[in-house]
């Protein structure tokens, strides 16, 4: 899940790699209250990437490179 004003742009960048097991979701002002996993994750000014699996999320990161590491790690 990606929060911040650049969330869609970041998702598009991440989607340039084939990752069949990943579903990307942008966190917007509207989605904040609707998806239970993102209930306390606000869409701030900074791009914030949450890599979640099995109902839990790892500590957020702020760059694509860090997110890639979490995904391949």
């Amino acid at each position, binding site marked *: 899940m990606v929060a911040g004003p650049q969330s869609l742009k970041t998702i598009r960048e991440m989607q*340039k*790699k*084939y*990752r*069949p097991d990943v579903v990307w979701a942008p966190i917007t002002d509207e989605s904040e209250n609707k998806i239970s996993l993102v209930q306390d994750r606000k869409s701030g000014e900074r791009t914030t990437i949450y890599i979640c699996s099995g109902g839990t999320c790892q500590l957020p990161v702020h760059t694509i490179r860090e997110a890639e590491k979490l995904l391949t790690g």
Partner: protein
Amino acid sequence: MTPLHSNQLIHESSPYLIQHARNPVEWHPWKEEVLDMARKEDKLMLVSIGYSACHWCHVMAHESFEDPEVAGFMNEHFVCIKVDREERPDVDHFFMTAVQLMGVQGGWPLNVVTLPDGQPFWGGTYFPKDQWLEVLIKITQLFRQERDKLTHHAHRLTLGIQQSSVITSEKDEIPDATSIINDALDAWSPQWDMNRGGSRGKPKFPMPVNLSFLLHLHYHHPRQAFEDFLQITLSHMSRGGIYDQIGGGFARYSVDEQWKVPHFEKMLYDNAQLIELYSHAYPVFRNEKYPDMR
């Protein structure tokens, strides 16, 4: 028949049904009162299922359903019902299951004959006019002379359809995913055409679900053979006549084994899945033609 003759389909909204509204066959839409009519008149029902983009549905309509002799026989002995499978996928699914249980190759047009109470006992797809008439004559003879046998056969088929819609697991344990994947590969990979892609022989279907599965498997367990087969298939399909090189989009299948001669209709469900497949394959194989496949 006057030139302005129309049957009950004239009141329908489906383009496929309206295409048959001027047939001399007295088609009825799939409705409760029509099913009641067959029961009351003790007539066999002929259920003919298709969709508007289906090539052989139109060939059969033109050869048989627009023919006064065939129509006369159908009207005399059957309550004839036309179904648009895009409007009634449930009805289509029921009769397709029936036909498959009869051991007959399914497809469209799907023509099924049922007893007056709606239980199917015979089915098939496209027939040229003479064969179609011959089949109908035989069925009506059987119905007159050996109705008990037909009823017994229809009853057994109906039981089979009911059972096939109940999903049961023979074992309690969850099957092992690796063995399911290996079994699927063992069954499928011997058919791979490593020269032209797709399955060996003709006709050649794009089968996007199979290819997406293989791409996904290759992501987790890369193998040279998977990569080769995917690349050969995707690039041959993109260069072949199955892909509309001018207007875009893929035809349902190619009639030959070189992806060369397309079979007419372009299905939305194939094209949607093929766009996804080529989009996913592009970052993996970096073939510059893939982004244009739409």
